[in-house]
């Protein structure tokens, strides 16, 4: 069996939805990954809307519970994730410029930031749980659900970055579209976190 490589991010964009680079218009990654990203955004969007609807029914209780979140950890997490996105975006640039070694190093940076994000999140969760904030509180239910599903996405993203690194290491498979697909997913993770950060930590 030779066909065991993941085509998830190895195949090029379908001709119907990719467009010529000549015009300066370029679809990063491929249509399938964008379908995934847009769908995920819509699903998360629904979660956010339900959250804000529930919150508007009991604003005082939510605000009271929100005060128990540690904003410093939230800010730290955001900075870590934004920085990881910077690494990954620069990696796409490096790949486009043919600097594959640099691209791989940048991806390692992005992945490391992702792992750091997961570690910080784990600390935050264990702190909250030891302080007695469990899913019995509706706000914390949303907190655990949204951050939990998001952290799953981060973990999946680290895995995807690993696959991209493996593809880049193979001189025959150094395709820009592969890096772009991984990057697109990764930035979506970042984007979702920015919304979660705003809605859970900052909104009053």
């Amino acid at each position, binding site marked *: 069996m030779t066909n065991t490589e993941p085509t998830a991010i190895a195949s090029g964009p379908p001709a119907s939805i990719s467009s010529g680079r000549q015009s300066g218009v370029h679809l990063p990654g491929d249509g399938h990954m964008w379908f995934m990203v847009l769908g995920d955004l819509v699903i998360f969007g629904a979660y956010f809307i339900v959250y804000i609807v529930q919150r508007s029914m009991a604003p005082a209780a939510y605000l009271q519970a929100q005060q128990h979140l540690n904003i410093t950890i939230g800010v730290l997490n955001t900075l870590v994730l934004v920085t990881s996105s910077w690494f990954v975006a620069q990696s796409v640039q490096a790949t486009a410029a043919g600097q594959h070694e640099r691209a791989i190093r940048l991806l390692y940076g992005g992945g490391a930031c992702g792992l750091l994000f997961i570690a910080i999140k784990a600390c935050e969760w264990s702190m909250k749980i030891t302080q007695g904030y469990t899913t019995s509180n509706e706000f914390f239910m949303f907190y655990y659900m949204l951050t939990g599903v998001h952290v799953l996405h981060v973990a999946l993203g680290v895995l995807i970055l690993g696959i991209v690194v493996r593809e880049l290491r193979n001189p025959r498979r150094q395709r820009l579209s592969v890096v772009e697909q991984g990057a697109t997913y990764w930035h*979506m993770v970042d984007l979702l976190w920015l919304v979660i950060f705003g809605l859970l930590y900052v909104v009053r």
Partner: protein
Amino acid sequence: MSTTAAPTRRDTKKVGPRAITYTWAVLCAITIGSWWLAPGHTTNTATPSIAITTAVVLLGFIKGRLVIQYFMAVKTAPRWLKLSTDAWLITLWAAVFVIYLY
């Protein structure tokens, strides 16, 4: 097979490394700025604030658009993608704001 790995002369509209770094700097600045807005920050009881929530919605929209346009490189993407990502951003934040006010 790997025609895309060696691109031709890049379009001037293209997002470059420098633009990405600027984006990163702005995102970090806004994030640190939000630190002052958050309810968990103060020791005394936080009160609801439409002004702060408006700021959160606006900043959230701006941050999201920066990520989409520059990190995800949608700035140079086909029109359908620009429109759908913008539609998502606008719908989400408008809905959040309207529901919050209501």
